[in-house]
Every structure is written in C-alpha cells, then in structure tokens.
C-alpha cells in the first residue's frame, strides 16, 4: 500500500513480521501497537495506516486506542529524558540559562527530541528540590546546584545515559 511519509525500510519489515505473528491470534491490536511502539519509538499515523490495512480495522479506531494509552505516543521520545526545573526557586537561580544551554547543545527546543533519538528535553514544574536549586534531572537522577558548565559536562560524561 502507498504511504505518504517513507518509513525506515528495516523497521517496516520488523513491523510486518510482528503483524504476521499476531494477525490470527485473538485481540491482535494491542500486541501489534506495543511492538510498533517498540520498533519505531512511537506510533505515527503512517504506522497506524499499515496496521489498519493489515488488521482490517478503521484508522479511527486505531488512533483512538493509540491516544488512549499513555505508553503509546504519536511523536518519538528520546532514550534519555532531560528535565530542567523551572519552578520559582530554580528559575531565580538561573535554570532558564541551563535550559537554554541544553537547547544549544542538543540543537532542539524545549519539548523536542534529538534527531538521533537519544535525548528528549523538557522543562518541568517544581520537583521539590528547592534546597538544591537550580536542578535538572537526567532520567530519574537529580543533579543539584547546577550551572551551564555542569549541564554541558553531563551530556559528555553522564554515566546514567543510555546509548541509543
């Protein structure tokens, strides 16, 4: 079938083989979507179309399911999530500068994911670590009393970072 946006050929093959496996089992949609999310890191409309065609379900239904569950996303999320606290305490201590530094280094804007899928950058509300302000976190780990330099170093050396 024709699709507008080209998907990665290799990943598409993976999707088809996943579809092939579950197609005839009862209730194939959820396992397929879970596989798709794993393969592509998200379930965009192009992928939904393939699934719709193969499982003979309307795109409307599939889109409804994708948007219902929090584990499915329409846009890819990075392997590592960086959150910069913009709560008052952190903000007055210059966390905006840290956010800017991450934006510069990763060449993405707040809320976006790097092209290589390694990082997603987000600003968050107060995470309750005001005593350590300004703070940012990489995955679950919190880095306190941060500054621009520390932020840049983390990207280079952070041991917590998962490789994509």
């Amino acid at each position: 079938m024709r699709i507008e946006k080209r998907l990665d050929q290799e990943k598409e093959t993976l999707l088809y083989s996943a579809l092939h496996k579950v197609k005839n089992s009862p209730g194939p949609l959820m396992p397929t979507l879970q596989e798709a999310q794993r393969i592509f890191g998200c379930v965009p409309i192009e992928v939904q179309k393939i699934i719709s065609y193969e499982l003979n379900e309307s795109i409307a239904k599939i889109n409804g399911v994708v948007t219902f569950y929090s584990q499915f996303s329409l846009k890819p999320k990075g392997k590592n999530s960086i959150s910069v606290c913009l709560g008052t305490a952190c903000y007055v201590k210059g966390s905006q500068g840290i956010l800017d530094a991450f934006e510069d280094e990763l060449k993405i804007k707040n809320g976006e994911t790097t092209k290589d899928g390694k990082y997603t950058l987000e600003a968050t509300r107060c995470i309750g670590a005001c005593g350590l302000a300004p703070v940012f976190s990489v995955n679950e780990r919190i880095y306190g009393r941060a500054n621009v330099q520390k932020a840049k170093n983390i990207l280079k050396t952070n041991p917590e970072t998962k490789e994509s």
Partner: protein
Amino acid sequence: MFERMQLLVCGGESCEQKQIGAIKDALLVELKKHDCENEIAITQSSCFGLCEKGAIVGVFPDEVYYQCKTKSEIVMIVEKHIKNNQIVEELRIKDPILHKRLKEHSNFHVFNKQNRIVLRNCGIINPLSIEEYIARDGYFALAKALKEYTSEEVIEIVKKSKLRGRGGGGFPTGLKWEYAKNSQSDIKYVVCNADEGDPGAFMDRAVLEGDPHSILEAMAICGYAIGAQQGYIYVRAEYPVAVERLERAIEDAKNLNLLGDNLFGTDFSFEIELRLGSGAFVCGEETALIASIEGFRGMPKLKPPFPAESGLWGKPTNVNNVETFANIPVIILKGADWFNTIGTEKSSGTKVFALGGKIKNTGLIEIPMGTTLRDVVFDIGGGIPNRKKIKAIQTGGPSGGCIIEKDLDTPIDFDTLTDLGSMMGSGGMIVMDEDNCMVDVARFYLEFTVEESCGKCTPCREGTKRMYDILNKISEGKGTLEDIDHLEVLASMVAETSLCGLGQTAPNPVLSTLKHFRDEYLAHVNDHYCPAGVCRELTNYIIDDTCVGCTKCATNCPVGAIIGWPKAIHKLDMSLCIRCGACKQACPVGSIKTVKGGEAHV
C-alpha cells in the same frame, strides 16, 4: 550443574534505588576473583519486606541476610562467608525494632505479627526455577484439585474459605467462580488482573516477580473449576521483570506439562498467555481490562452483564487479582477450615500491604485480617520517625480515604475499613504525620484521578476535574465557604453517578479528609493559613529567637532572603521569600516556623 550456594539479591523497588545492580556486579567480580562463580548462583529476588534496610543480600542455604553498602563489605562477605563459611556477624541486618542482629530471618520482630501466605515463597525461592517452586509444594494443589476433587468441590472449598477479592472490592471469590461455572458456554476464560496501578502499591509486583508459578497454578485450578481452557494474565508493561519471569514460568510449566494438554493425565487442558497493559489505571477495572485485551480503548462497561456471563469476546470470564490467586493453591492444599482460622469472621486470611510514608520501617507486610492499625503502625512499622505525631493513615490509594488516630484500634478487614470511610483497596498504606496537609493530600489523589479518568462518563470526567479545581483554589487561599459546600455536593454526586469503581471511589479522599479534618479546610479558607505549612501560597516563615546563628538557612536559601551573621539571630525578608521551605529543612534547631500569612511581615 548444581551450585553449592545461592545469593539472593533483593530486586524490590527501593533496593533497586539503592543501586543493588552495582552490588550484584561487584559480587560477580569478587566471585570471579576467587574462581568460584560457577559454584554460586546469584538471583534477583523480589522484595524481602525490609525496605528500610535496603540493598540486602541473602545467602542460602545458610539463611543469612546481609546489608551491604560498600565494595569492601562485599569483598568481606565473599572472602569470609562464601570462601570460608564464616558468617560476617557485623554485616548482618539488624532488627529494626530490637536493634539486635538476629540469627534467623523469621525471628525478626517485623515478621512476628506477620503471617506470610501470599508471600510464602517471595525472597525464599529462586523465581526462575520451577524445581524450587515444586520443592515447596508447588503444583501439588493443582494435582490435588484435578485428581481428588470435582470442579464443584473446588468451588465449594473456595466458597467455604471465604476468600474475598484482594484487588480492593472484596467480592467473595468462590461466588464469582460459581457464577462463571454456571454460565453456559463452550468457551470460557480465566483472566488474572495484574494491572497494579495505585501509586505506592507494589504487592502484586512482589508476587509476580518472586513467585510467578503460584499464579499459573492458581489460574489452572480456576480454569478447572469454572470449565475454562484458556487464561490470560494482563500485566502492566511498567513491570518488565514481572513480564520476563512470567514468560519464563509459562514456558517452564509447559515443558513439564504442568500447563498444556491433559494435565496430570486427566482430560483437563489449560493454556496461559500474557497480555500487556499500556499505561491506563482504569484498566484495573475488570470490564475495562477486558476491553483492553480485546483491542479497544480501556473503557469500562455497564454491569450487568457481569464478565461471569459475558466477558472476554462475549464469553463467560472470571477475573481475579494476583493476590487473590496467590491464596488459592494454599487453600486447596491445606483446606478451607485452616484458612478460616486466620483472619476475622467475615474476612479470612491475610492481606499484603505496602507500608510507606512517615514510618520507620517501610516495606511489604502481610498480616492476618483483624490486626489493628495500631499494631501495623507501631509494632511492625516501628512508629513515626523524628518524634512526630501520627495524623492519619491513608489506605486504598486514590480510591480510599484517611483513617485518624482515634480509629487506630480498629481491626483491619474489608468491612471495617469501608465503615471508616476508606477502603481496603489493593493495599497501599501511607502513614502521615503532622507535617502533612490534608487538603494537599486530597488534591494529590484528585490530580491522579483527573489524569486517569477514561472520560466515558460525565460525572467522573467533569466532576473530578471540578473538584480538583476547587481544591487548588482552596490550597491557594482563594477558596470560600461556599466552595467547601460545592465540593461536598460534587463529591457525593460523582460517587453516586459514576459508571465504574474509579469514579465511584474517586471522591473518597475528599470526603474522608472533609469529615475528619474540616478544621484544616476552614483554616485554609477563613484564615488563609495552612496549619501543616505545606501549601506554599499560604505559608509564611519566621525565625524565632532560638536561632543559634549557624548560617545554614542563609546558605540554603535559593533567593538570598535570609540575612544574618554567624552566631547572631538571622532575619528573613518575606518580600524576597519564595516559600520553598529549604531553610526550615536545613535548620538544625527548629527555629524556623511556619505562621499564618501576613503575620511574618514585621
């Protein structure tokens, strides 16, 4: 290859946070150094129920539990105990209440009042080994049920045991099975609800990760009783270890023909498949769960028809929670009469709770029904830290409510908790002290239900959001007395008219805090004051004259609102203060106090 020793490394959530992974790696390195990595098996087990201690390593068959933090301690354990069979006394975990190092794990004071039925194998067997499960009477209950009992007799035993659904509702399990059995259909299903979603609850996870075979065995017994040949376990994708172990367990059971065709030479066949949840709290509701397996949005349906008549793909389906299933093999083996000796008249057996919050010993506990809350908090939990006073106990997560100190002597069972305006729920138990603001607590749970409401029915979708808005208004000091009235009306309306359990119970945190802590709500509204000093907009700080001038507060203040010289009483400039509370936390002598808004501007 048989190992001469086994090291069990706790893989519970809180031990994981204490970097148990690194400890496991270090152990492996040490074992390799001594060239004995093939003689010793390292297994990640589920929670040991001693979370406060953290990073625990158990050495079997000696049954010695160590608490280790540093690499040198690991070196010591390997060198002394594993190489030379000398127990390293100084690293043994201490009993958190008696402050003594005890010889036997089961002698722990924490475990004295506990009775481990559901968690019987957790932290004791290697969850990846079907042999170890069988060695602890595993699959004997299935054999007994198939060989000695008719399906009616199995249901009769479960009914007689008075086992009630441990997922929260407390519906009699035997009755549920009987309904499913009496529904006429060639195809029926057994579903295990492992979509544990309550914030702060992790008992199902412990069973799934620590004793996966017990669930498989129980599901097969249920299948035999109701006449089903296919089972599904709906487990949340956030538990990858549980998923992995269940997959392995199913495979191992199939290989030994403990699942599959003609089990134990009878004509009963049973298969189990896994289905993953995808992050929707409402899927813990059985009809929503069924919709999710079928590949729809996880939205609940009106009951009746109950799943026992028309469930998965329109066929009769029996849905039970993990903990409920974990009780079944023991009941079949030891009988209903034995089970009835544990617990109370109407709620027999035990209940697993995830004890947390402001309490000394946090962790998983399993207590007989009828144990009082006071015993749980002060005996098992070791009381409240920092000499604070207990304010309330929250049970049942976002569906439950708060129980206050005067009701602490109530024996815990399904009905007493409901009478107190809370509920058993799946088993989260959060202890709160005087530093917790009850308006804030209600707001926290409402935020969760707003997020997780599926949106199908209006009372839940809109009602929870409006309640949340009002609570926000109150915690910002903008609430009025009318708002409190609205909140009450809304709460009872949402409870009465919502479609499923999520909406029906969502107002519980609001209603119970309003009932027991109305004065706190009134303080927020009338005096613009948060007595616990939690709600930021309503809290001002003062430094009183007990200040010793240590400068800690000034150093910790993120905005430089505190001025003062060493050894002199410090001053706080409220016009700069952002009310983050960092100074109060830092103060070693408790000189920083919260006061009503306005008073501090002196």
